[in-house]
Every structure is written in structure tokens, then in C-alpha cells.
């Protein structure tokens, strides 16, 4: 589903964020990316849909190359990739339903959508996606009147409205009350299991990662330090990912 080969990212002016990553994610996997802050987790996720421009290497998603794609092809591939962010990134002044409808932008004609016109089928789909995260009763509310946990669920509904093949979630629970972590992760797990969607989620909490992932990928200083099932994560592996306490 996701094929990454030789992915290297140099952030301006000269920080090497990723040193040549090779990774294949199969359909239906729930991959949790672990690592210290600065290990390259966010850069890795953002280069999968080219919010960050890779310096070298290739990324293929659902069989289509996103690296090297022209503007039209890039948008077509991005439609296949839903993304959930640490800060939710909703349009605060828009309604919940409008935020979910934004997930359809890649499918609707540009000019019609700018005038606020969406096909009836898209409106129905947006409601269905809201129902999936249990928030259909808040459809008319302004996004910034919702709690953090609710906003993140709206953001997940927006990603679902893309009818994606893959969902990337960058620290989706890091800005939330710890009690809400499991509610968000449970929704992601349900999506993964019931719809067969491929998930790549970055997490800084080891316990949460082990509880939900089907596969753990540990990043350290821009390289893959571990790749395997949660059961194989031993103290030695944790040491390899996070390093000794006094390092850095």
C-alpha cells in the first residue's frame, strides 16, 4: 500500500531529517511509528503526502508514485491519503459539517466548491463519516466551540470523507487529555479493522503504541532503528529506539 525507497529529507538550511528510509506497509496494517521528538517521525509522515518535499528517494501510495508527480497527479494521490494532525487543524470558524466536507475537495470541481456548492452525495457522505465518529449531532456547530477530543474526531471524519486508502495520523493524541487517548485510538482501530484502511500513526507513548499497533517502526536520528511486531519490542529494542537516558 505504501512503498518507500531511499527516502532522504534535508530540511533547510542543512538538517538531515531522514537518511534514506526503506519501508513497505501492506494493506490493512496498523503501523505505529515510535521515536524521540526530533527522530524524524513527523517529517516521515509529511513526506508520504509531500507536505514535506523529499530530497531524494521515492514514495508510492496505492500503486501510484507521489514523488515526481505533477500538480494534478499529486492531488489525485493525496485524495487517497487522509491525514490527522496533532493540532486537529480544523478551520475554526467553519461548521463541523463544512470541515468534514473539506475532505471532498479533491473530488469536486474547484469553482463550484469555492462557491460553497457540494453534490448531495457528498453531503450525505460527510454525515455518514460524522456518524462514524459519533458526532452527527454536532454537525451545525462551529468547529472551535468543540472540545479537543471532539475536534480530533471531526478531523478523523474529514480524513474518512476522502474515502482514502491510507490514513496518516501525526501524534493524534499528544494535544489531548490522557484520558481521551484511548477514545481516539479506539476509533482509529475500528476504522482499521472494519474498513481495512491502512494506518500509519506516530505516537510518543510506548504503552499506547504496543496496545494498538500490528507493527512497530522505531525511528532514531532519521533512521529506522526497529521494525517488527509489538511482541518483539523488548527492553533492548526500547533502548535502541530511545537510547540511554543521558544521550543527547
Amino acid at each position, binding site marked *: 500500500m505504501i512503498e518507500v525507497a531511499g527516502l532522504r529529507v534535508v530540511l533547510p538550511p542543512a538538517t538531515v531529517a531522514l537518511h534514506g528510509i526503506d519501508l513497505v506497509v501492506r494493506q490493512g496494517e496498523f503501523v505505529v511509528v515510535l521515536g524521540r521528538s526530533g527522530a524524524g517521525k513527523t517529517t516521515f509522515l509529511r513526506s508520504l*503526502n509531500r507536505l514535506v518535499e523529499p530530497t531524494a528517494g521515492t514514495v508510492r501510495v496505492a500503486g501510484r508514485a507521489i514523488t515526481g508527480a505533477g500538480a494534478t497527479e499529486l492531488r489525485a494521490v493525496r485524495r487517497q*491519503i487522509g491525514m490527522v494532525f496533532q493540532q486537529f487543524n480544523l*478551520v475554526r470558524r467553519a461548521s463541523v459539517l463544512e470541515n468534514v466536507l473539506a475532505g471532498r*475537495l479533491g473530488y469536486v470541481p*474547484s*469553482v463550484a466548491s*469555492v462557491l460553497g456548492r457540494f453534490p448531495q452525495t457528498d453531503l450525505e457522505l460527510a454525515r455518514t463519516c460524522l456518524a462514524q465518529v459519533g458526532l452527527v449531532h454536532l454537525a451545525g456547530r462551529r468547529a472551535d466551540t468543540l472540545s479537543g477530543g471532539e475536534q480530533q474526531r471531526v478531523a478523523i471524519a474529514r480524513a474518512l470523507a476522502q474515502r482514502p486508502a491510507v490514513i496518516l495520523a501525526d501524534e493524534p493524541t499528544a494535544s489531548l487529555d490522557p484520558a481521551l487517548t484511548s477514545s481516539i485510538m479506539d476509533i482509529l482501530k475500528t476504522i482499521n479493522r472494519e474498513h481495512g484502511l491502512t494506518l500509519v500513526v506516530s505516537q510518543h507513548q510506548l504503552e499506547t503504541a504496543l496496545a494498538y499497533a500490528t507493527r512497530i517502526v522505531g525511528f532514531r536520528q532519521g533512521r529506522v532503528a526497529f521494525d517488527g511486531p509489538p511482541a518483539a519490542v523488548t527492553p533492548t529494542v526500547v533502548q535502541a529506539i530511545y537510547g540511554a537516558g543521558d544521550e543527547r
Partner: protein
Amino acid sequence: MKPRAALFVAVIVLAWLVWDTGADPVRLARGVPWILDFIMRMMPPDLRVLPAALLGALKTVEIALLGTAVAAVMALPLGFLSARNVAPGPVFYPARAVLNFFRSVDTLVYALVFVAAVGLGPFPGVLAVVAYTTTSLAKLYSEAVEGIDPGPVDAITATGATRLQILRFGVMPQILPLFLSYVLYRLESNIRAATVLGFVGAGGIGFYLQTYLRMIDYPAASTVLLVTVAMVMVVDAISSRLRDRLV
């Protein structure tokens, strides 16, 4: 030691300013009776000039409204061109320089120039308001654009949206309320600025105020002043209510 040195310098500078501007509390005290006399002679306001004053006020509001509206649109491209996160360096720096140059001149000075260029009346007043407001709004716009949260823009980009859609759904919702609020704020200031435009022949209520003062018709002048105060207060009240709704 450093704050004390700064305080010492500040005291020296202020003392020099007092001396050089001839600031003198005694002179002010001696002038108080004259101020009171001036106010007494303004009483009671001569309400026969009320229609003329109201017409002048209306013209002032028209000058400020038209000038602000034109400037609000003209400032749009300039605002984006002088936003650091939108315009490339070779565009940004000249655009900022142009803004700072034109902004350093006040509306009244522009009015003098335009009266000389196109003659007396409200039209040079409108031009003066446009000249100053375009650059000052462009500065405010550019700051709004620079303060944008990149998060929603990223999120909309990630859905596969076009540039136009990103602008409409990721950028505009963030800046539009700010832009409108700045325009209303400028409108309030422009009403005040436009009251004195008449002094230099650029139309509006200032013309009446200056005329009656010259004719030493203080009761008539006081009517004009009262209308001016009422006009400014009404526009401020409407405008600030509209601005509250935008947030």
C-alpha cells in the same frame, strides 16, 4: 546602574524639550480665562446653521466611506505582496518600502496635494483618504496574512485540494474577519481625519467649522462642533458593534 543612567538621560531630554517648546504651566493658567471666555461665547449654539452642519457631516461621512471602500480593495494586492510568508524577497522588500514611504505622510498632507491637483471640494478629500488608507490597510492586511495558522492550510492541502480551494478554505476563513475588522477600524479613523479635510478645502464639515470660526460666529461654530461629535460617536458605535460580530 544601567536603568539609572537611562533615567538620567530621560530627565535631561525631557528638561530640554520643556525648555525648547516653551512649555509653561503659568502661561497655561493665565490662558484659562480666555478658554472659558471662548466657551461662554459659543453658548448657546446657533441652531439656525444646523441644516448646513448636517449636510457637511453627511459629506464627511461620504468622503470617508468612499475613500475607505476604494482603499480596502486597492490594499488587497499590496497586502499580499508585502506579506513575508507569501511574497518572495525581491517583491516583499520593495513593497514594504513603498508602503512605509506613503504611510509616513498624513491624510491632511495628501489633501493639500490633491486640492492643488484637482481643485476644491469633496473629491480631493476622497483621493486623500484613499492615498493614506490604501497603504495603512495594506500594512495591516500583510500582518494578518503573516499571522496565519499554517495548520488548516496543511490540512486542506492534504485533502488534494487545488490552490484556489486552499485559498478559499484554508486561508480566507482565517484572514477575512480580520480584514473586515481592520477596514471598519480605518473607517472610524477616517471619519475623524475627514472632519479636518475641509480646513484645506477638501470638503465636508471642516469647511463650515473653519468658515464660522473665521467669521467669529462662535455660536454657529459650536453647532458644527456638536454635530461633528455626534457624527463621530454614531459611526464609532455602529462600526464597533459590527466589529464585535466579526470575532
